[in-house]
């Protein structure tokens, strides 16, 4: 799976650029590169539903972020005072995190051979139980519809919150 490594490396480079670029617009565009890399990963990992959703969601995130930043981009951001102690702290934290992450990864199943204890039931019973040919849809809206209900609730709350924050009624001038 060399292509997965290459795309993931591209995503890491683009993510680093998105964090470190000076202008906000450049950062947002580099973030779009990360998202498109993720779309390619989903396609290669046999998840076409996720690829479609990630593609359109990434476009919408880009539109929202550009709309929020394009007129407000001021170059006069306070630069970080970079000294050696600070850099040392960052590297120490990253190293410790990656070390213990690596230790934890050895306990996982090997890549390319998932456990699938619950999913076997879903795959075997999707067509007879629900009549849906898309197993992901069957899980999402039939077997585990409670999760979808919670997801709809969260999305509703966040959208109502965003509208309440942005509206003009009751705002002090």
């Amino acid at each position, binding site marked *: 799976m060399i292509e997965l490594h290459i795309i993931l490396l591209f995503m890491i480079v683009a993510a680093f650029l998105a964090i470190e670029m000076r202008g906000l617009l450049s950062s947002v565009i580099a*973030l779009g590169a990360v998202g498109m890399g993720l779309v390619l990963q989903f396609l290669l990992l*046999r998840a076409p539903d996720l690829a479609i*959703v990630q593609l359109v969601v990434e476009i919408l995130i880009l539109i929202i972020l550009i709309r*929020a930043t394009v007129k407000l981009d001021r170059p006069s951001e306070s630069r970080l005072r970079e000294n050696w102690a600070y850099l040392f702290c960052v590297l120490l934290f990253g190293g410790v995190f*990656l070390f213990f992450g690596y230790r934890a990864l050895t306990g996982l199943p090997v890549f390319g051979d998932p456990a699938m204890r619950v999913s076997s039931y879903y795959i075997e019973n999707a067509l007879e139980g629900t009549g849906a040919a898309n197993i992901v849809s069957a899980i999402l809206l039939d077997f585990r519809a409670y999760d979808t209900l919670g997801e709809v609730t969260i999305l509703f709350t966040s959208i109502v919150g965003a509208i309440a924050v942005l509206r003009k009624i009751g705002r002090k001038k």
Partner: protein
Amino acid sequence: MSLYFMALVLFCIGVYGLVVKKNLIKKIIGLVIIENAVNLFLILTGFRTGGEAPILERGMEAVPEHFVDPLPQAMILTSIVIGLGVIALLVAISVRIYEKYGTFDVTKITELKG
């Protein structure tokens, strides 16, 4: 294995942007990178070498060993859309903060607090 580790590195970069940068939009970008890394990691754990996408066709046997794991895909599908709602809420709050204080910089906002 190395793919898992690279997803962790991507997660680390997102945490770096979220913690270190002082610009609110940069913090949101770090959060989006963290979301992408976690979604990718969970999908990687469900991949089966040579497996089919979990969509049945006519005349296809529903044998679990022939498909990739569909359960992480369904959960990540909801996670992506939740992430979109969260990003919309965060951008709304950031734009309001910019309206009130005239800057995205966190240090200046705390200085200007009245």
